[in-house]
């Protein structure tokens, strides 16, 4: 199991498009991933409604948890998506 904390880069937080891109990447990885805002409750990161309902804003810190053999590679991908400003 691996864990990483990332600062969200999208200007308007994880709303429709950034959330969609993130959830699609999680689904593609095939690994069970959870996401939590700050130190809150972790939700299934492959659920777009779960992710959107966390109400993640620009600058919030999120923590990803993953069970996978290539956890680091997947985390690199996801971290990149989360830290990019998709609203720019």
């Amino acid at each position, binding site marked *: 199991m691996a864990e990483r904390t990332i600062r969200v880069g999208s200007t*308007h*937080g994880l709303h*429709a*498009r950034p959330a*969609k891109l993130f959830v699609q990447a999680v689904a593609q990885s095939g690994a069970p991933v959870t996401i939590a805002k700050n130190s809150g409750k972790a939700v*299934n990161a492959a659920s777009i*409604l779960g992710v*959107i*309902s966390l*109400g993640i804003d620009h600058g919030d810190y999120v923590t990803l948890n993953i069970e996978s053999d290539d956890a680091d590679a997947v985390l690199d991908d996801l971290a990149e998506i989360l830290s990019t400003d998709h609203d720019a």
Partner: protein
Amino acid sequence: MTDTTTQTLTGAGIGQGVAIGPVLRMADPLPEPADEHSTRTPDEERERVTGAVAIVADDLRGRAAKVSGTAADVLEAQSMMAEDSTLLDDVSARIETGKTAERAVFEGFAVFRDMLVALGGYMGERATDLDDVAQRVIAALSGGPAPGVPESDTPFILVAHDLAPADTALLDLTKVLGLITREGGPTSHTAILAREKAIVAIVGVAGSDAIANGDVVVVDAAAGTVTVNPDETLRAETQQRIDERASALSGSVEPGALADGTPVPLLANLGSTDGSAKALEAGAEGVGLFRTEFLFLDQRMAPTVEQQREQYTRLLNDFPGKKVVVRVLDAGADKPLEFLNDAHEDNPALGLRGLRSLRANEDLLREQLTALAEADAVTNAELWVMAPMVSTVEETRYFVDLATELGLKTVGVMVEVPSAALLADRILKTAAFASIGTNDLTQYTLAADRLLGSVASFQDPWHPAVLRLIGEVGAAGAAAGKPVGICGEAAADPMLAVVLVGLGATTLSMSPSAIADVRLSLRSFTLDQAKHLAEVALAADGAPEARAAVRAAAADTTPTQPHPDRNETPQ
């Protein structure tokens, strides 16, 4: 002759056109599924949900593949919402307690919907997308049509209760021959869209619920009538009128002027730069009203200064050497923007809207004015900027001072509120120009919500009380030597346009599709005749009387005048 009965319905016609075609109805919102114990087993119900969700997600993905940009993102996100595992777990748990698939889906989506609404802002806006998905899944469960805008490969006449801005965004305008709505007055969002896109439309049609899918109808906007199952004679006449009108309007595009040569520049109302080419083609001498809210709505979030500058530069580049009047963001009432004001208001038309709402969010106003000034600096159009919904002299000073400070040269205000019309002399001491928004001015003068079908008959700019207020502004403009434009839909009515000039309007701005008819009408009257017609209208008791009296007087002044008033709508 068909063997079905011909039937005629009436409403408020938008514009002068006529159309004929088969009807497609916009499916009504589904009723809330009953909360009753399912007669199926939980596994059977779960299987139904799985099947319905797959159908909906496939359909949404298919639609996403056909479009691009924001629309595609929204549709893809919606397809993911339909298949969302957290949601389906919740639905499954509800089914386990004996609920029907329909009810479980309804309740499960509602939980997430409420969660999004509670988050507010950008997340809150996703609630509408989720509602749409829920409706689609419930429709798929019951085998019914999905709610929303119908899709068709062949042209049709759309019949709806009313259209929300979100519906119209998805509308394929190349397929819509005409539009009939049960709700709405001549200035509702639907009517404005219809004018802008030159769709033949009739709004506020009581009895339109009885029109069925596939019925052939004739939509005659000039007469304000919908004829269901027209006979062969009417079908042939209609086709002939469509052809004749097309050839009459493809004629000359000289500048707007009265019979005595008095220039009355004819400008275009635009909601985006997409309409520029069409406006120029119609002979528009500039833009009298550029609405910026469509820019904000399409973005689904506040655009940055850079994004705005790019849009305004494109607009100004489309009209080199010509006047372009840009109205800063007019949010509220019929155009709510949650990032500006998400507080519930009982009377949004009387609430925090227009300049009031911008003043409460001054950063946004400053950004917009900055973007406009920057675009002005790199282009050759003559940029004028105005504020919507100004009701006091103090607000006028506030806006003019701020816009001037940010580098804008010609700053004016819209006169849409009776208080501003009555004090126009004082307002024009500060403002460089006034532009009268007749739609709101009528709504506020007659105290009738312009979005409400039940009071649509009050929404008539021919009302002498409205005309008297316009006359006040015209007189104040003449005394101060400052221009007074009309940018409401009243300017698109060929006969009323003459009266407005008689009341002191110096320019008229309208949907490009209306320019040809108005140009033709203005050419038939001198300034003295226009002033006389204005007096005739002011002396009437009400809107229908004013319209009838002016039509009679116009026939007297110019016996050769070919039917200037074809915009009459039955009351």
